[in-house]
């Protein structure tokens, strides 16, 4: 009797561990372990080929005195802030597309299209759009006898130019999240709102938006992640230029560690650690919120 109880206890406690084990192993090996490995490498001077030399916190000291690092950090902040525009823009388009008109599926897929194509293609398309001599933007500006402007060749505009290109697919992503969310909005509540004379803005703010809260939460999550890993567009559109003024931390890390003129693994790892710490702030907020929500239910 007591033996069978013990074995049932073992089954209960062992099964979850066993089921989780593969995931935990892979997570440890591919996520947790590399994080600590990066931290370790960031304390060395290493070109990826020869011997590692331990330099302590020298890489971090140098980073604190590196103009390029602060430029990248500043750009990261600009990215984080402006990328959030994708959320209201996505909501707006989702509301606009949430009607029953002939061919709406086609319109929806057209609006979703930029998210499906590769970021590299988005980057190239916008590079041509911005081209100072032949680009569409300057042709249009020319009609109003404005310009020409060199968006991607001017240190003041370049980051905004790239973010604008990035907003195109990101808006589509947020839009699809909201369209799904809108399908789940309770028609009875809308009906009730109508009876209470809620219209337009009030209807949106007090009735619709609260019901879209889960969609908004996911949209914020993916947009923050999108902004922090904004690497491909920078690489394709400007390669960090002109003179490094459009670099973001992810790109700077790549440049220092893996690009043609880089191969300072330790320094690259130090940048990665700083980027990780920035993300950690956000991840902590996210986890705390998740924990609270779970507890609340």
């Amino acid at each position, binding site marked *: 009797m007591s033996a069978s109880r013990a074995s049932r206890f073992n089954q209960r406690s062992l099964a979850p561990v066993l089921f989780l084990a593969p995931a935990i192993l892979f997570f440890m090996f591919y996520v947790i372990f590399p994080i600590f490995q990066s931290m370790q490498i960031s304390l060395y001077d290493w070109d990826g080929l020869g011997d590692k030399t331990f330099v302590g916190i020298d890489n971090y000291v140098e980073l604190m005195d590196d103009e390029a690092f602060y430029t990248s950090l500043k750009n990261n902040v600009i990215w984080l802030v402006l990328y959030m525009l994708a959320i209201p823009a996505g909501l707006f388009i989702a509301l606009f597309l949430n009607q029953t008109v002939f061919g709406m599926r086609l319109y929806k897929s057209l609006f979703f299209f930029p998210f499906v194509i590769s970021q590299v293609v988005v980057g190239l398309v916008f590079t041509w759009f911005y081209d100072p001599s032949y680009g569409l933007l300057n042709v249009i500006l020319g009609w109003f006898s404005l310009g020409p402007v060199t968006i991607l060749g001017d240190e003041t505009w370049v980051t905004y130019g790239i973010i604008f290109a990035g907003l195109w697919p990101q808006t589509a992503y947020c839009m699809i999240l909201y369209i799904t969310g809108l399908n789940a909005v309770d028609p009875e509540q809308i009906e009730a709102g109508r009876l209470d004379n809620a219209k337009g803005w009030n209807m949106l703010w007090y009735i619709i938006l609260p019901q879209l809260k889960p969609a908004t939460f996911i949209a914020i999550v993916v947009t923050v992640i999108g902004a922090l890993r904004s690497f491909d567009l920078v690489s394709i559109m400007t*390669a960090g*230029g002109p003179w*490094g003024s459009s670099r973001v931390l992810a790109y700077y890390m790549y440049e220092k560690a893996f690009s043609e003129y880089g191969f300072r693994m330790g320094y690259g790892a130090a940048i990665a650690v700083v980027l990780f710490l920035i993300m950690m702030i956000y991840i902590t907020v996210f986890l705390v919120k998740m924990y609270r929500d779970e507890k609340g239910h």
Partner: protein
Amino acid sequence: MVTKFKTTIAALAASTILATSAFAGELVINTDTSDPAPKAAFEQLIADFEAANPGITVKWNLFDHEGYKTSIRNFLTADAPDLANWYAGNRMLPYVNAGLFEDVSDVWDDNGLNESLASAAGSMTIDGKKWGVPYTYYQWGVYYRKDIFEANSIEVPTNWDEFKAAGATLTEAGVTPITIGTKYLWTAGGVFDYLNLRTNGYEFHMALTKGEVEWTDPRVVDTMNNWKELIDAGFFLENHTSYSWQEALAPMVAGDAAMYVMGNFAVAPLREAGLSDDQLGFFQFPVINPDVPLAEEAPTDTLHIPANATNKEDARKFLAFLATADAQTKINETLGQLPIHKDATVGDDKFLQAGYAMLSSTDGGIAQFFDRDAPAEMAKIGMEGFQEFMVKPERLDAILARLEKTRQRVYK
């Protein structure tokens, strides 16, 4: 049971070794010569080598340029081919220092390369040893639109004043004197190198790229001030930060720009774009300081044996073959570049002939290129500084101070 297990393991290991290691007589070559002309040149070279050495089959892996720069680091350590192409000068230093390239001084000694390839011997030598065999190089200089020069009755400038006057005439005629695309930075490095070679000479160029001179040195400032004269006079294409070097060819083809400070590889795309040899010309970068002997830039491409190669014996045969006058004549005819072997014949092309004439009469010295003579990190930050200077010349002091800070760290 245990023995059976052991034999299985042994068999498994043996088959793995068989699968990865090359068979005797097979020579593995990795190159990034993926553009049409270089690809054809290597195809020809390999076919000729196989014909001359029956019993050796060549396995050739072709990479794209950008990918090659990162993959070479992996394959040199992990899965080394028997030969790999790379560049002379400082660019090969990290691999030599890491012990990844084989010392091939014996190939040089046994085949008399010290005489026949003498012009490139210096750039192949580190610590008194030779680390590869050079097979081609090409001149840099000013490529220009002959017809535009003639239409504005401009003579080919030979000194600084004539050069500036030519620019002024062109600007007046509504033509941008020099086209350039600095998006990928190195083109600005070429302009800096020439201004610096003409202002301060070859010795100074080498001292600067070796980190022996401060970037805030008055001689560097002289170079930059000469550059500023051109910038202030509107010499360079507007919005050059947005263009790659290929995109910057367009204004020259369209006749909106008249000159391009470039390497000889620019000739092929310019011809393809429809410029005839009557429209296109080449001249040596004009004299700035008459007391400085003329030095030129001529980057050299090379072939190396990785230290971890399996078939070094045949690889040495291949290097010796590549170093012969015939092989160099043939490969460079297809490449449209200059052979290094002193007895090799230079192609009939007028730009090759002009380059050959210029380089063989150069007494000042032959530089590789800013990003090949300077260590990678210095090169990157330096060229970024040049790009910034071309747009914001007023920031000169800040830029030079930044370069100096980098110099103190990189070369310590």
